[in-house]
Each structure stands twice: as structure tokens, then as C-alpha cells.
């Protein structure tokens, strides 16, 4: 965290709304189209206490008054909520089932994830996206990913990813086309799991 981010003063958003949100979106589009590939986020943004830089950039690019955000107890700081309310105008809910985007840290209690909206058979798009702030993303062979977007397979390693995540994810994958998509957000990089992605834990 920078010093600046710990003050209660409002931090700036994107330098150039149109170009920066486009650049962040393109990274997200690539990441979800090619699950398991790791991308740098090409925009630097001021980061409020409670969030990390890539998560902040993701929300600035994707959230607005039409999306509800849920922040885990360790993320829901005044700085973070002020920042999102001011720059995105998005409602912030404490009801995880209402979330379009849910944000948590990897070492949080992740039991909330079973309450995320998965959409329904006719509208599977009405589901939540989970943004999980992590310390490190790498290509180490901890998980072997296959499925749409992946030629042959990708290896992916998310430091400290708990077994409970895999149990939930396996169940989630079976609900297809319903399900939750996951964005892993390290301080500088992003990788995603689409609900279609099959994971083999190595």
C-alpha cells in the first residue's frame, strides 16, 4: 500500500477514462478467453486501502451504477467503498447473493463463494464474477487447465489456493452453463478461470 492510499482523501481514478478502461477490458477479455494465461495490467492506478492495483483497475473498468459489488470483510474499508462509489457510482451490498462482482483476498474465509449467484438455465449470464486478490500467479504446474480457450492445456499456480476452492470449483464446473467465473488478481498480474475450464490439480 502506498502512503497516499492510507489517507482518507479521495484518490484519482483512471487518467484517461476511455483509453484506460479499454486497455483493462482487453486484458480481462483476453484472460477470460484464454483461461490460465497470465497477463500484465497495462495501466497504473491509485489503489485504495483494502484493494490491490489490478482489482481496482478491473472494477474501475467494469463496474458502474448497474453492477452491485460485494467486498469481503477484509476488503470493505472506507477508502475502498468511497473510491468505488465515487468513481464507479456502483452500489456496494453486504448481501453476497446480490453481487455482480465479489471481491475477496485469498486468505479470507472463502465460505461465501457458495452463496454467489450462478445464474439460471435460461439466463446463465446472470451470474457473479469472483475477483480473488492473490499474492502470486505463476505458470508452475500446480493445476492443469483444459477447455475452451486453451490449446491442449495450460499450467497455472495460484499461491495459497486452498483445497476448499477446488472442491467448490469442481461443483461449479458441473453446473454449466450456470456458474461463477473467477479472476485472480495479483498486485501486477491477472489470470482467469472461465466456468468452462476443467482443472486437474497436480
Amino acid at each position, binding site marked *: 500500500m502506498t502512503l497516499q492510499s492510507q489517507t482518507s482523501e479521495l484518490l484519482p481514478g483512471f487518467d484517461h477514462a476511455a483509453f484506460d478502461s*479499454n486497455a483493462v477490458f482487453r486484458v*480481462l477479455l483476453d484472460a477470460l478467453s484464454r483461461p490460465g494465461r497470465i497477463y500484465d495490467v497495462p495501466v497504473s492506478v491509485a489503489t485504495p486501502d483494502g484493494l490491490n492495483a489490478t482489482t481496482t483497475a478491473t472494477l474501475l473498468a*467494469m463496474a458502474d451504477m448497474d453492477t452491485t459489488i460485494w467486498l469481503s470483510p477484509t476488503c470493505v474499508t472506507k477508502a475502498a467503498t468511497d473510491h468505488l462509489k465515487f468513481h464507479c457510482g456502483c452500489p456496494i451490498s453486504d448481501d453476497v447473493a446480490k453481487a455482480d462482482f465479489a471481491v475477496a483476498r485469498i486468505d479470507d474465509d472463502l465460505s461465501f463463494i457458495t452463496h454467489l449467484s450462478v445464474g439460471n438455465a435460461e439466463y446463465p*449470464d446472470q451470474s457473479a464474477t469472483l475477483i480473488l486478490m492473490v499474492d502470486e500467479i505463476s505458470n508452475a504446474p500446480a493445476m492443469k487447465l483444459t477447455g475452451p480457450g486453451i490449446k491442449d492445456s495450460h499450467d497455472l499456480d495460484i499461491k495459497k489456493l486452498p483445497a476448499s476452492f477446488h472442491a467448490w470449483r469442481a461443483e461449479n464446473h458441473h453446473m454449466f452453463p450456470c456458474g461463477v467465473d473467477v479472476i485472480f488478481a495479483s498486485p501486477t498480474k491477472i489470470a482467469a478461470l472461465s466456468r468452462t475450464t476443467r482443472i486437474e490439480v497436480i
Partner: protein
Amino acid sequence: MEQLANNPADGATAYNFAYLDEQTKRMIRRALLKAVAIPGYQVPFAGREMPMPYGWGTGGVQVTAAVIGPNDTLKVIDQGADDTTNAVSIRQFFAKTANVATTEKTAEASIIQTRHRIPEKELREDQVLVYQVPIPEPLRFLEPRETETRKMHALEEYGLMHVKLYEDIARHGHIATTYAYPVMVDDRYVMDPSPTPKFDNPKMNNMAALQLFGAGREKRIYALPPYTKVKSLDFEDHPFEVQTWKDECGMCGAHDSYLDEVILDDQGNRMFVCSDTDYCAERQEAGHRGPQHHDQPLGNASREKAAE
């Protein structure tokens, strides 16, 4: 860079980058992320009125506007050609509202917006193909009601589609669908590939590029992530097959491209040329010649002797 249209009534400067306001772009972008996560599923989106008519590519234009950034290079084709009037009009629109570089070369483009064709040249991982879609629902002509077709997709109830295709076989001895030929995506959703000729269907399978589909009037977005299994529907005794021509391209001699028929007179004389103008031009530049090639239509092309 394109020349800007000389139309004094257009005041493009008053609009945001790539025309759409940021909130609309975000709404489309969210739909796009869902679309790639559920390949072949049609995501409803609040399509906006665009300054070109519905049915003329407003869905593709909205998708392109949401995706395009200042560093992109855009190619627009209609029927495979860069210089058909509607392709020119859409290319001018983005050259004007987004000030992006445009190209006619498939290999140089980072985003290709298309109506009715997939380029012959194999697309790469760093390219995005955006399709203009008139009727996104592959079941629409079997069942006009959205409430019903949505149920059919939810229940994976695609029997009706197979019955329809089989009725064709019974009547004509062939599946009588030659374009907008339905495909099964990743063994789950039946999808309309847009009115591309079925010749192009095999290119969709496991394509390295991301494929995005926008239907503006019907307000649906769908997608095929790269390397996704796309299978044209067929039957064991009537396997899917693509169009073939006895002729070759009259200009470049290609045997492997989709050919348009050109009527030469009213005596039944005709010739065939590649519908993909860039593919044909590139082959001609490389010295390939078809039987009707007369000279160097590209100006500076090589002066090799045309095949007689």
C-alpha cells in the same frame, strides 16, 4: 488512415472515442465477458440505436466499438470484400470516431469486422474477428418465440433442429442449408454462425483468434473463445460437407477459396473470382494467375505473364 467522408453534416467531434459513451461500452463489455465464459450462449444486452440502420451491422459495430482501442488496426469486410459500400461505410465510421488505423490486409489487422465471410487466411491469436449477425437464434425459423427457444437451449432440446435438417435430406437428398449452417459449440449450445457460407464453418473450429458475434436489432452478443470445439450439425449417413467448385479463381487461380460467380454477358458466360479480395490480391501479387487474368489490375503487381 482512411480519408474522412466529406460530409459536412457529420460532426463526429462531439462524440466519445469510438462513438459510444463509456457506460454503454461497459454494459457491452460485461456482456462480452459472459459470452466468452459461456461459448455459444446468446447473452442479452441493451443494444443501442446506432447511427446506421438496424440490419446493417449495428451489432458488430457495437461490439467493435466496445473492444477497439487507439492502438488497434481495423479491417472491415462485407461478402469477403473490403470495398463493398457497407464495409467502406463502417470502416469510415471508425476511422472518424476512433481515429484508428485501418487496413485491407488480413494479416495487418488486430480487429476484423465481417459480414458473411471468414477470411481465407488463417487468423492468429492476436486477432479478434467480429461478426455482424442478423438473426442470432439458430432455432428462430423453427420456433419464432423467444420464450420457447430460450427454454430449448436451457434444456439442450435440439431435436427439432435435427428433424428439420433430416427433412431436407428426405426431400432433396441433401441438407438444404448452405449458409448460416448451425453448429454445436463445445458439445453444449447450438449456435448460428451468422450467414457465412457453410464453406467457412470448419474455420471456426479451434480457431486461434477470438470470435465475437453482435446482433444489434435482436440485442444479443455471443462468442467463441479461441481453440473451442465447433462442429457443424450432421448425420452419420449424411456427413457435413462444404461447397466445392469445378472452376478456379479467374484472377489468381486459387482452388481453395470461396468463389463468387461473375456474370460476363447474357449468353451464359461467367467466371469465378475469390470472394476474399485480400486473399486474391495477395496471391496475384505473389505471381499466381487464373485463366481470366488479363493484366495487372493492382497497378504495381509483378509483370509475370498471365496464364493463358
